[in-house]
């Protein structure tokens, strides 16, 4: 079969450009709508208060107020702390999730033990339970252990990710058994197999999951809101909430500047690695 023939639809498009033009027009219209918030964010971050109040629809500021707005935002938003907290927390969460999930998923996928089915049930149950459902007792527990306002509180509940187990499980099941048999014949212990055979070969699943995990936890507001009340430990979403609270007035210029500062890291990372992002979501979707 020739693999470089056009799909019937694309082929038709070349013969009837009208169809293609209307498709592109629709996509572009939608793209404009979807990009509008970012455009306005960029625009307002550079406007002075007076301009914001008078001309809502002009995109390019008459007076470039970027420096002032950003200075104000940066002075109120401890950007470095926020970013550091975000990176640290997401990094630690991801690290522990993978560390715990991979051996477990390997055992469930490739080894025979009676509890495997029980584990499967536990995993499926765990998928149904979001952090919102377990937050209350966990909060009480952390509170009584005086662990509120700490990195432990931020990281610990997420160190177990049943979704990670689920994802790696699917992936390992698809891995050929022969690889493991060969390693056993070579005399490797089970732990050796995990570290030297499984982990290197699990790379695609790990990167896919990393994207999922980082995006989910960078974005998470609920749990940090529950356990953190000190600015020092604030994650980016929380930091923005504090800024909003502090910035009681309607200084949208500074507000947009602060928004930009906080959004930029993940957006930049996304734009830089967008193929991986999309692959990651795709992989979780297909396996589902």
């Amino acid at each position, binding site marked *: 079969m020739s693999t470089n023939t056009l799909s019937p*639809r694309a082929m038709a498009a070349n013969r009837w450009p009208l169809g293609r033009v209307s498709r592109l027009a629709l996509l572009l219209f939608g793209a404009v709508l979807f990009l509008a918030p970012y455009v306005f964010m960029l625009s307002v971050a550079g406007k002075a208060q007076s301009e914001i109040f008078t001309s809502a629809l002009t995109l390019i500021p008459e007076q470039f107020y970027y420096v002032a707005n950003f200075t104000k935002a940066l002075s109120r938003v401890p950007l470095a702390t926020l970013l550091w907290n975000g990176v640290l927390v997401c990094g630690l969460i991801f690290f522990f999730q993978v560390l715990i999930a991979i051996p477990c998923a390997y055992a469930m996928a490739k080894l025979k033990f009676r*509890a495997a089915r029980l584990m499967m049930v536990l995993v499926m149950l765990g998928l149904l339970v979001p952090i919102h459902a377990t937050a*209350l007792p966990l909060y009480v527990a952390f509170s009584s252990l005086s662990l509120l306002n700490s990195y432990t509180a931020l990281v610990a509940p997420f160190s177990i990710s049943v979704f990670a187990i689920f994802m790696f499980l699917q992936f390992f099941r698809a891995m050929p058994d022969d690889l493991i048999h060969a390693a056993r014949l070579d005399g490797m212990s089970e732990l050796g197999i995990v570290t030297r055979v499984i982990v290197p070969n699990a790379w695609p699943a790990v990167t896919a999951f990393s994207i999922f995990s980082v995006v989910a936890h960078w974005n998470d507001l609920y749990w940090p809101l529950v356990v953190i009340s000190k600015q020092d430990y604030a994650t980016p979403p929380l930091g923005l909430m504090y800024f909003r609270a502090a910035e009681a007035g309607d200084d949208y210029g500074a507000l947009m500047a602060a928004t930009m500062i906080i959004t930029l890291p993940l957006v930049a990372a996304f734009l830089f690695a967008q193929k991986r992002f999309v692959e990651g979501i795709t992989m979780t979707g297909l396996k589902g």
Partner: protein
Amino acid sequence: MANLAIDAVPRARKTAAAHERSEARTAWLLALPAIVLIFFFILLPVVAVVFLGFTNFELGMGKFRFVGFENYAHLINDRAFRKALWNTTCYTAIVAPVSIVLGLGVALLIESETTARSFFRTVYFLPVASLIVAMATVWQYLFHPTIGPINSLLALVGIPGPNWLAASGTVLYSLSIIGVWQSVGFNMVLFLAGLTAIPRELYAAAEVDGARSSLARFRLVTWPMLGPTTLFVTTISIINSVKVFETVQTLTQGGPNHASEVLLFSIYQEGFIYLRVGYASSMTVVFLAILVMLTFLQYNVLDRRVHYS
């Protein structure tokens, strides 16, 4: 002598049963950390929540007692909670279908277009990758009744724009718009994956069989083959909509007058602001029950109809 005896037995003679036992032991060891953590961070808390739902525990109030179903009885009569249930339902009923349909539409458009695919994919997916709290703030500006661009645009064509986020009639719709904006990209990517998995030959066969128009081919090939993907997207969309929180917390705090009060927000207020943990736990149980029911419903009812191979 014992030592000699052991050395004399070749290692390969380890019996099959012994091998199985050691394999099982290793498996247990490997899975143990996960099991322990699941127990402490998922199972135990769920049990605790169910238990606390039967108490009148309030944080900081020392003693508490078992009150049976009193909390639940109170819930049924709690107007604010019923409003939260209703609002969450409305929100989900808008956001889930719209973001699914739009996600599918955008995916179809992108799939049949050959140029600039990754540009469009990026643009539509950008909201998903952006910080929700941050973008909610931007939307707050967009929705601003006097200085926001949306109302200014409407004013240009002579329509008086409503007070999007501060009027009880429109606040849910505004939040829904933000919700759709955030989810379309995610659904689009999932649908794109499903679309590319459809074998091209099926479309050729459909054409030869007489499916002249794109619509005919969509009905004969695309839609049936997207079944599993659609089911997955629907499940995820509905569940994510039910879990709406960030936008409410950031923009409206449940107001005005409970018009945008949603389940998770109520739970948060009751449990972490008013510290009425027992009552909040009963709310959490209801919330969890809804999630579980939704998931089971979809997978059991639709799953069989949707997988073909």
